[in-house]
Structures are given as structure tokens and as C-alpha cells.
């Protein structure tokens, strides 16, 4: 239980640092740290397969993508002043989190905690077959979208002027 508390504090601290740091590259590194700690927490909750996927995709692939994009787009510091005043943003966020905790926390102990049944590994292929098809469709549409976005065509507006 001490481990879960430490890991939870680590996740929250690295998430705050990922939002608050000025440089984008440091922000991407802290996001990778938060992802790795999240994978550890998922593993401790008894789901090792999704922990491996979260570690390899969240901490590996997404970080590489972020570094690649920052490399192309440049590490440009945008001025700190946000469009919304920061106390208003924090107030809204804390209000929403407190309301959600007020709704959810009393319900938490009501459900029975059973032993983890890890023998049925085929639920992904039997009960969730449509999800696999959906994932393939999402994957291909994402690839097509990236190809369309990164195509080096001239914008039409500049040619007319």
C-alpha cells in the first residue's frame, strides 16, 4: 500500500511538471516518466498485459513522436499568460474534482473484490471481436490522416495572392 501511494504521488508530480515546465522537450520527458509510473500502477492492479502495452506505447512510441514533432516544429516558448486567468482555471478544476470525488468515493467499497481470474485470456478474441476491427479501422484512418496532413502541398491561398 505504501508502494501504491508513492507511485500515485510520483504520477501526479510528473504530470504537474509536464504541464508546468516551459521547455517542450522537458515536458515530453516528464510525460514519459508519468507513463512509466502509470504502467507500474496498472501492473500492481493485476493487469500485466495492458501495463506492457502502456509502457511500450505510452513511454516509448509517444515520446519518440513528441521528440520528432518538437524537432520539426521547434522548441518555441509561448508566453506564459493564458487566455483564461489561472485562478479561475484552478478553481473550476478543483471544484470538478471535488464534486466527482464526492459522488464516487462513497460507492467504492460497495462492490465485492473478487480474485483475479487470469485464465481466460481469450476474451479479447471472443467477446471483443468488434473492438479489434474498430482498432484496425482507427489505425488506418490515422495513417491516412497523417499522410494527408504531412503532404507537402502548397496552400491554395498563397497561390492566389
Amino acid at each position: 500500500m505504501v508502494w501504491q501511494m508513492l507511485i500515485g504521488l510520483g504520477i501526479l508530480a510528473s504530470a504537474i511538471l509536464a504541464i508546468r515546465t516551459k521547455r517542450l522537450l522537458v515536458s515530453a520527458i516528464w510525460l514519459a516518466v508519468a507513463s512509466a509510473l502509470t504502467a507500474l500502477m496498472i501492473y500492481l492492479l493485476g493487469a500485466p498485459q495492458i501495463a506492457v502495452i502502456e509502457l511500450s506505447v505510452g513511454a516509448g512510441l509517444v515520446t519518440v513522436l513528441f521528440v520528432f514533432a518538437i524537432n520539426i516544429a521547434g522548441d518555441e516558448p509561448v508566453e506564459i499568460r493564458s487566455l483564461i486567468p489561472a485562478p479561475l482555471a484552478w478553481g473550476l478544476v478543483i471544484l470538478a474534482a471535488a464534486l466527482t470525488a464526492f459522488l464516487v468515493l462513497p460507492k467504492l467499497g460497495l462492490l465485492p473484490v473478487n480474485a483475479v481470474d487470469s485464465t481466460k485470456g481469450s476474451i479479447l478474441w471472443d467477446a471483443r471481436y468488434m473492438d479489434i476491427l474498430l482498432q484496425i479501422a482507427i489505425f488506418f484512418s490515422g495513417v491516412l490522416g497523417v499522410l494527408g496532413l504531412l503532404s507537402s502541398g502548397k496552400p491554395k491561398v498563397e497561390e492566389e495572392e
Partner: protein
Amino acid sequence: MTLSVSTIVLITILGLAGIAFYGLLASRNLIKLVVALQILVKGAVLAFILAGNQIGNVNEAQSLALTVIVADTIVAVLGLALAVQIRQRLGTLDIKALTTLKR
């Protein structure tokens, strides 16, 4: 005061969602917005696994979380490609430069 493991994980999920919503509200950098979305989806994945752990059916939760991770990765890829294109056409990553209507 003793906290159970599920309460600790739930507090972590709420904290992640709160931090991500603050980032989405207050950040002006396009790539920072994608970072905030990633943090939000990490909280969602953790919530799926916690729910599966609580009802004793982790496998169902794992298959759902896999779909969420795949969709989230595609969202990150598309958002970063959009940010790169906007940077190349407008010369900045500031979301205030995207407004075409003057206030």
C-alpha cells in the same frame, strides 16, 4: 486514517484528470495541449483497470483499455501532425494565432 489501495488509485485518477483539465484550459502551446490530452487519457486507462479490479473482471477491462490506448495514440499522432503543419504555415504554435475573427 487508513486508505485502501482503490482509494489511493482513485485519488490519483482524479488528480490526473484535474491536472489535465487545467492544462487544457490554461495552456496556449499546441504541443502542450497534446501533452495534457495524453495525461487525461492515462487517467482514463487507470480508471478502466481500477473498475475491472473492483468487479473482479480484469480481462474485460484490459480489452477496453487496449482500445482506448490505440485511439489515444492515433489522437496524439494526428494532433502532432496538425501542430507541425500549423507551425509551418503560420510560423507559431500559439493557439491565439489561430483566431481569424477579431474581437
